[in-house]
């Protein structure tokens, strides 16, 4: 069977220094060449961004690509888009490839909106005729008609994004690779992007799509590929792959430790987000799993009326809960010198997203510790709808729906 994209044992090596030190000079090269002659065993450190990657994408498939930073996702897209060459292996593409690795590639701030439409379109592989033919559509889609003769530098960032996206949305290649465009823009913009992505899918384009927005992948892509350290770690139905991917992010630290400082009367030692299940330490909780905020601190001398408080703030700055020990307990019993651990159990009511943990130690009259240095992720359920994730609600408490029909159902059609 013919595939739209065939990647066969593709590897990509970067020499360390190539990426971190772009300002190579001729002198460096000469010195290096001389050294190479003198000491034959000198080896430059090499990094494999991709290692023996195999991937076949059928025509019309929409495939998600996940992995941590540095896993090789962008490098793979760049090889499929022929921006960079593999060190080994071969990538074959049937049909034109459009690469959307950045929003507004080639945009120039001094040029007008109209000039930038042509520039960006040409850069993305459209001919002047294609652009002219679809110019009116692009302008209408962008919603910046009134500013077409204005230099781009006078655009707001929202207008900039809308214009860039309007051009990209009118590309017509058979294969499209997309890198993290959902990371920018406001909710409205992201929603538009997602809508366009599902249009592409419905039109039968082949799409390979990198994002950290796992909800979007769950919604758009039936199949997901997980790259880990340059290799394909999993490739299969999105639910299965995302579940496995989530489980592996366990290793990510969800705690912070503080250097003990005996000069302080009261000190925070560790702050952690932990699973209620003692065996699975430091899991990024899924939104249907309870978790706990755990703090260890030390009271070196008797601090009068010591109280502890913890709170959670969303990445948008909404405080979703804030609890103080004495809200619910008569006395914490923290007055005695000693080291304590306080655990606040949180029921599974938070929507998926990033939260910042706040911690406070003090009395009614003074603050000894104030810490907001830990943030963690509440993971979505595989298959959560993007719309539900975006609904911008503070909590998902255990509520229930009941629907009842009040009138008589219409008589069933006769036998």
């Amino acid at each position, binding site marked *: 069977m013919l595939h739209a994209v065939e990647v066969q044992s593709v590897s990509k090596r970067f020499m360390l220094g190539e990426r971190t030190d772009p300002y190579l000079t001729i002198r460096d*090269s000469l010195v290096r060449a001389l050294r190479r002659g003198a000491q034959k065993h000198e080896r430059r450190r090499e990094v494999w961004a991709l290692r023996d990657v195999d991937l076949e994408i059928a025509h019309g498939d929409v495939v998600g690509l996940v992995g941590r930073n540095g896993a090789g996702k962008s490098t793979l897209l760049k090889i499929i888009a022929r*921006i960079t060459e593999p060190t080994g292996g071969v990538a074959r593409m049937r049909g034109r490839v459009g690469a959307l690795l950045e929003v507004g590639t080639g945009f120039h701030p001094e040029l007008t909106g109209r000039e930038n439409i042509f520039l960006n379109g040409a850069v993305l592989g459209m001919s002047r005729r294609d652009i002219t033919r679809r110019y009116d559509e692009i302008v209408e889609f962008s919603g910046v008609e009134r500013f077409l003769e204005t230099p781009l530098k006078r655009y707001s960032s929202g207008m900039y994004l809308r214009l860039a996206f309007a051009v990209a949305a009118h590309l017509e290649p058979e294969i499209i690779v997309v890198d993290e465009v959902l990371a920018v823009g406001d909710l409205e913009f992201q929603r538009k992007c997602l809508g366009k992505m599902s249009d592409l899918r419905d039109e039968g384009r082949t799409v390979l799509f990198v994002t950290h927005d796992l909800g979007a992948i769950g919604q758009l892509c039936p199949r997901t590929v997980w790259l880990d350290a340059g290799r394909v770690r999993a490739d299969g139905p999105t639910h299965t792959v995302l579940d496995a991917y989530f489980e592996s992010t366990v290793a990510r630290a969800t705690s912070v430790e503080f250097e003990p400082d005996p000069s302080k009367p009261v000190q925070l030692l560790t702050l952690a987000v932990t699973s209620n299940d003692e065996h699975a330490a430091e899991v990024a909780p899924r939104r249907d799993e309870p978790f706990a905020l755990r703090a260890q601190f030390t009271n070196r001398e008797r601090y009068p009326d010591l109280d502890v408080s913890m709170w959670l703030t969303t990445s948008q700055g909404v405080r979703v809960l804030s609890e103080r020990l004495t809200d619910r307990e008569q006395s914490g019993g923290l007055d005695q010198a000693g080291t304590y651990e306080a655990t606040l159990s949180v029921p599974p009511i938070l929507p998926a997203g990033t939260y910042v943990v706040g911690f406070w130690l003090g009395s009614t009259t003074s603050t000894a510790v104030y810490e907001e240095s830990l943030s963690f992720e509440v993971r979505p359920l595989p298959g959560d709808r993007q719309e539900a994730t975006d609904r911008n609600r503070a909590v998902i408490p255990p509520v229930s729906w009941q629907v009842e029909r009040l009138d008589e159902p219409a008589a069933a059609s006769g036998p």
Partner: protein
Amino acid sequence: MSTLETSTRPALAELPLTENRPTSGWRPRLDFRELWSYRDLAAILAGRTLKLRYKQTAIGIGWVVLQPLIAIAIFSVIFGKLADLPSEGLPYPVFAMAGLAFWLYFASAVREGAECLVVDRDLVTKTYFPRILAPVAATLPALLDLSVVLVIAGVMLAAYEVAPPVEIVLLPAWIVAGVVVALATSLWLSALNVLYRDVRYALPFMIQVWLYASPVVFPSSLFDGLDRWLYSLNPVVGVIDGFRWSLLGAPAPPTADLVCAAVTLVLLVTGVLYFQRVQKHFADQI
């Protein structure tokens, strides 16, 4: 229903197949059909350079006229009057103008060419296009300057009552030759500039030295015998000789200028080969 839908889509086997695999060696891989299909990008990039050049300037396009005029005036005073350099029996300003017409194009095109990839870093790291298109497009914008200088040249010829010879019909051929010299130079410099930023610092000096090594302010006939042949190792010599011959009726380029043609050819072929050999590193190293 679905059969109707699929039949409107091109069959997979009919879609163009492209491959990305490691390349090595010096084998040329120019795909002229692909280059032609990207011609709009070259034109749009060249147009962008022109539009950007005089944005937010008070006299805008006026600079295109002013720059060569000032250069001709300065050169005429310093080299024509003070240094009293020979000018093939022609009025010195007219003589200098013919040399500057090409030199100003060349210097501008090479400056543009050397920086073309580095300036468009984003395009190189985020999009695919035949990379060689960038230096090709960079040779175009300066042609506007050249045509303006040629208009000035017409006015000057009338003012100094110098009648252009019949060889003026060959001028377009000399312009093409000049573009090829600029392109060959830009291919080398643009590729080297990605890998070694020394180019950026060396370029202003290189252009300065090259100007005085070229017969812009003096005639190439200052050299004779073997010296004249050696002098033609500088490919710009032949083009300027050609400009003066076609525009002013100065002596025809001597046989020695065949060396210029040979050097240009070598520079162009090696430039294409070198560019193609190192272009796989562009996206990673730029």
